């Protein structure tokens, strides 16, 4: 199509990666935490235990901060495709644009229609209606992730379309939507969202117990989260392996880059199955300057076989090779994070099994508690590095094998691109710092144990009305804005 200066292309990539990196901090937690809130609110309705109510209200405050940040950074994303990658948006529009359109209509608007009820509806709508609102928020946020992953995984394995006069026309919607990468990429993402939500809850609960603040209350959330993680964390490692095998099958160049795997065969002609623990790739020479490899592990991972041929980068034309350094290390960091998280979850399961999951038992194990607190950071690390791996290892393609990133980029002035970058660095950092600052503040303040438990159905009270304005007639005092 058009030729583009490589600086312009690189800047557009940088601009896009910055905003997506700053957006992905929030949605997974929205999904995971909404699911946890659904669970705890349901426990409250079911058991009528006030503790679940208090926990729900407490974690909901954190949810709201996170949600606001997600919206603030997300609106940018919706516009950014057209601004930064106009030709790509036009060409891929018939499929990709449709999918994002589906998303806004079936997920964002759906979510936005219930989020206000969930956060501010306490006491204004019945308890069951409120639970229904929470359910809708949790469900719609998962739908949103699903559509986004459909769009993104189609860029990785574009099936069901053909190119005609510069446009991707859809031949088979089912094939395009349920493309191979989606089938493993979406579950992996969804589990990542649960994992981040659960470790977030667990980390904060552990901190509270360690500080001896409402330990009985937070023991409940800690136990629930850690028990769920005993299943979720290993599941994620398994799903990650499945995703790796999908990548190996549909984008061998990306896999080879992630593994720093240059040579398909060893010098003696046998398949090179060595898996590199660490390496220093040299892209100009087409090999690693330095590496520590373990034979057979690579073919075991990708094929589940002792010795099979895994195509290396030497099978890919130099101009079609992705960068190696970033995917290689980003991938290793994610895998390490996944492994550590799994060990922490299993540790918790073991303690529970031994019957040590009590306030006294846990407070006697500060190192376990510290490990849980530290683990709240790791899912963030894993999600960042996972996405960087994915997006960078797809290069130089924007739609794998069909359209190059340089063909998809808008012809922009360097100045405009730099202005974009600086502006979004400033605003997105403002969001990020603000979000963490207020997380910390809410956590330090702790849960509100005083205000009366809501009851539902008090439509006479307006949002934010001062309680004493209407309390005279003996109406409850609880209707207050919570966020």
């Amino acid at each position, binding site marked *: *199509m058009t030729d583009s200066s490589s600086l312009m292309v690189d800047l557009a990539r940088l601009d896009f990666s910055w905003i997506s990196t700053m957006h992905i901090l929030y949605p997974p937690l929205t999904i995971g935490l909404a699911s946890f809130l659904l669970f705890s609110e349901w426990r409250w309705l079911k058991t009528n235990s006030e503790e679940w109510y208090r926990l729900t209200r407490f974690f909901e405050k954190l949810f709201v901060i996170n949600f606001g*940040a997600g919206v603030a*950074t997300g609106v940018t994303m919706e516009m950014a495709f057209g601004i930064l990658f106009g030709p790509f948006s*036009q060409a891929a529009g018939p499929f990709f644009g449709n999918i994002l*359109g*589906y998303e806004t*209509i079936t997920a964002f608007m759906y979510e936005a229609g219930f989020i*206000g009820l969930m956060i501010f509806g306490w006491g204004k709508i019945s308890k069951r209606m409120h639970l229904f609102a929470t359910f809708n928020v949790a469900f719609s946020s998962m739908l949103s992730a699903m559509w986004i992953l459909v769009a993104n995984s189609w860029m990785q394995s574009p099936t069901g379309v053909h190119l005609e006069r510069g446009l991707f026309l859809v031949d088979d919607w089912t094939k395009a939507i349920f493309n191979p990468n989606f089938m493993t990429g979406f579950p992996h993402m969804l589990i990542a969202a649960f994992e981040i939500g659960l470790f977030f809850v667990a980390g904060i609960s552990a901190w509270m117990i360690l500080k001896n603040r409402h330990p009985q209350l937070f023991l409940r959330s800690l136990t629930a989260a850690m028990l769920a993680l005993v299943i979720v964390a290993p599941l994620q490692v398994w799903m990650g392996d499945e995703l790796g095998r999908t990548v190996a099958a549909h984008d061998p160049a990306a896999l080879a880059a992630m593994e720093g795997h240059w040579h398909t065969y060893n010098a003696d002609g046998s398949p090179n199955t060595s898996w590199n623990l660490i390496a220093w790739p040299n892209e100009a020479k087409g090999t690693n300057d330095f590496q520590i490899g373990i034979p057979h592990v690579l073919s075991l991972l990708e094929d589940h076989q002792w010795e099979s041929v895994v195509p290396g980068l030497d099978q890919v034309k130099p101009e079609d090779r992705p960068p190696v350094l970033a995917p290689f290390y980003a991938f290793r960091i994610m895998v390490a994070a996944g492994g550590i998280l799994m060990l922490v979850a299993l540790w918790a399961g073991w303690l529970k099994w031994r019957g040590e999951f009590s306030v006294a038992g846990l407070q006697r194990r500060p190192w376990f508690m510290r490990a849980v607190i530290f683990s709240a950071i790791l899912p963030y690390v894993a999600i960042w590095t996972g996405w960087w791996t994915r997006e960078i290892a797809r290069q130089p393609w924007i739609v794998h094998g069909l359209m190059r990133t340089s063909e998809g980029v808008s*012809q922009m002035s360097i100045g405009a691109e730099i202005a974009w970058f600086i*502006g979004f660095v400033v605003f997105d950092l403002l969001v990020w710092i603000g979000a963490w600052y207020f997380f910390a503040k809410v956590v330090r303040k702790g849960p509100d144990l005083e205000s009366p438990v809501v009851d539902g159905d008090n439509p006479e009270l307006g949002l934010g009305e001062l309680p004493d304005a209407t309390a005279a007639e003996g109406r409850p005092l609880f209707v207050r804005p919570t966020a």
Partner: protein
Amino acid sequence: MEHIMTITHGYQWLTVIWWLLIGLFVVLYIILDGADLGSGVFSLFHADHEERGAIMASMAGTWDANETWLVVAGGAIFGTFPLAYGSLFHYLMIPLMVTLWGIILRAVSLEFHHHADRSKSFWGWGFGVGSLVTTFSAGVSLGAFLQGFSMSNGEVPTFNGGALDFLTPFSLWTGVTASIAASLAGGVYLRARFDRDSEIYAKALGWTNWMFFLGLIAIVSTVLWTAWQFPWARARWFGEYMWAYGLAGAVVLGATWEMRRASREQRDVSAMLWLGTIVFINFGTMMATLYPWFVPGTLTIYDAANPSNSLSAFSYAMLGFVPVMLSYNFYQAWVFRARLHKLAGYAAH
């Protein structure tokens, strides 16, 4: 643009339906978020610390849903008019970028203000400034949109102008007009949301009076400027269907009169509804003037449309959702209908 037209033959009625629906999403955004943005602008000039908090609390349950109409409009354009999405948004890069900064600032200010102690006044200002920036730059984008832009004639035509093409006296003026119109909507909204004996109510009364007259001047001059500058608008307005446009103008004038009356008689909710009606009719008239252009003088809705198989897939999947979407949003707004007073923002602590 021949070749693309051949792909998009047929399904023309679907194209028109989606174009109308996107118009509906945009006008809903303007009406709903316009009021929120306008009260942000009001808070910059007229509110003290506590009142700003109360204004923010008044929209706490609904601002996100209101803003999401913009996202829905963007998503639907991408889904149904990808050729327009990829070129128009590129053309509008700078004003959209600034709009996005404003939206980010406003969104986080709304969330963080509540939790802040020392930084409360910072987020209060962030809310106001974010609202003003969003309104102004969105208005500039609208004006720039009406100007059209230049396209390459490759196989898939793309925007090939410069980053500053959007910037003209006309687009700046539409930015000003949008800010004034939103300020009016904000005042009207605040009067419907706050107790009649509260101070905000009284201040909003004076504010709406001013903004009403400023708004009248701004809008009439924008209409005249449009007629003077754009041949496609002139041709429509003074062409075969002149009577229809005349009628629409008369209806708008009548509605304006009614709004004024409702406003003077303190029937605040009616005033808000009349204002909504005015915006709606104005926007509808604008779309009637534009047809068949998607971007005037640049892309028709048929050029910009999605190749037909995608468009029908989109339609089958999505058309049913639109009424559902409208109804649960209405329900949410209904739950939060009660009036407030000044200290609302602080009741939370």
